[in-house]
């Protein structure tokens, strides 16, 4: 008991000492370099999605997403989740992407957290950047 109390007091002293010494509260701050790094990470995935979208999925029939959706147009990612009338339920964008993969592309659906699925959505959203969210819109 006495030992525990000593530890608690010591920890409080260390925290106090760091605060007084002016060291940064690391969880609360990031700088331009961090932002640049995170943007690079994001754009790497967007680029991966761009390639997958333009014939990089390896499906046997060679049909690619961009054949119907140049620059990701006419996907309307801002409208998801929405009631997809043809599927009869409210779905997220990934579920509609899987419908396209299974039907016109004649390939197997991807897990919704698959890296390629994430990349496809990153590309689609990136090409639609700046458009206001409109979940549920038809």
């Amino acid at each position, binding site marked *: 008991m006495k030992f525990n109390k000593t530890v608690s007091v010591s920890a409080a002293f260390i925290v106090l000492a760091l605060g007084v010494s002016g060291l940064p509260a690391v969880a609360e701050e990031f700088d331009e370099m961090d932002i640049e790094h995170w943007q690079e990470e994001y754009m790497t995935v967007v680029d991966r999605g761009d390639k997958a979208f333009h014939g990089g999925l390896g499906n046997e029939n*060679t049909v690619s997403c*961009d054949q*119907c959706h140049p*620059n*990701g147009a*006419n996907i309307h990612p801002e409208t998801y989740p929405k009631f997809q009338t*043809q599927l009869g339920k409210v779905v997220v964008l990934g579920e509609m992407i899987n419908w396209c993969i299974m039907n016109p592309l004649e390939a197997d659906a991807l897990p919704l957290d698959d890296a390629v699925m994430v990349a496809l959505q990153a590309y689609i959203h990136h090409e639609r950047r700046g458009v206001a969210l409109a979940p549920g819109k038809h």
Partner: protein
Amino acid sequence: MSNSSRRNFLKAGSAMLAASALPISVVELAFGKGSDENFTFAYISDSHITHIKGNKFVNNWDRGLIRAVAEANLLDPRPDFIFYGGDIAQLGKPEEIDHGLEILSGLRGDVHYVMGEHDYYTDLGEYWQKQLGPDHYSFDHKGVHFVVLNSILTYEKWMHQKWESGMHRMKQMARLDNPNGQPFMVGDAQRQWLKADLDKVSKDTPVVVFSHSPLQKIFKAWNFWTEDAEQVQALLKPFDKVTVLYGHVHQIHTNQIGNISFHAAMATAWPWPYPAAYTQKESLLPKLTVEMNRADPFFERDATGWQFINMHTGNVDVNYTLPDNANRVVAYDTKLGHPVDTRLQDNADRTPAQTHY
């Protein structure tokens, strides 16, 4: 429209209605200079036959063309001929061109062909021309002068640079949204040929020009565009009545520039979004255009189609046959001096499914 031409048109229209589940386009030319004979022609375009391997082709695109051929064969009165508006193939492979031509061989009647970029850039049109002949030509039919141009050429230097393969060059142009793609053009040589060809035609002869790309500028990033469009339009300007019919865009376009009416053909393969659906770049959709419905991908043939054209005054009326959608007629209005959608030109008559965003 004369009673005779209206009768023929309605007759043909009812045949189309009976076959309206199918995607082709037919054109009625109920007028020809110095001729009392009405005539019709069908207009099928953009089938993008895609070879997978061996004897396997993408079934969806095959079905679109097969359906168009079947429907064209049901037309009554029989069209005098059929136009094919380009992009038989997806990647210009001989297998694709031959497979497409085999399907098209089922058509009853002569077919005139237009070169598309998907037919061209693998071997610069060599195989297509071996099978089908010249890529630009003209002919007269019952008082109308028809001209076919190869409008999908681009800069000579780019086409003839050192490529790792013809297929590599094709893939630069076949991908619609490729930032490395080059602008389409008719080019100096063909424009000189066109000038010489038109010099022999009297100015009151109706002229119908076929190109694959629009001979007007709509959206450069997707090559809904011909770089020297204005120079071609200038050659057509002296004529009383000119119509330009083009493919490539896989959607309905309507426009009037001076004496020239413009109409786009639907594809038999798949639809493309209107350029405004891509919000990162500006585009110029002609104001007269009443947009086709947003496609429902769960209906394979939705937003594909074909046209039936009626030239009752020497101008073109286009009848769009649209599977899974109500058919549309974009007719030349002699009072207004431009084409109008006979049912939907008024905004109030449009449906929510036509709203593109």
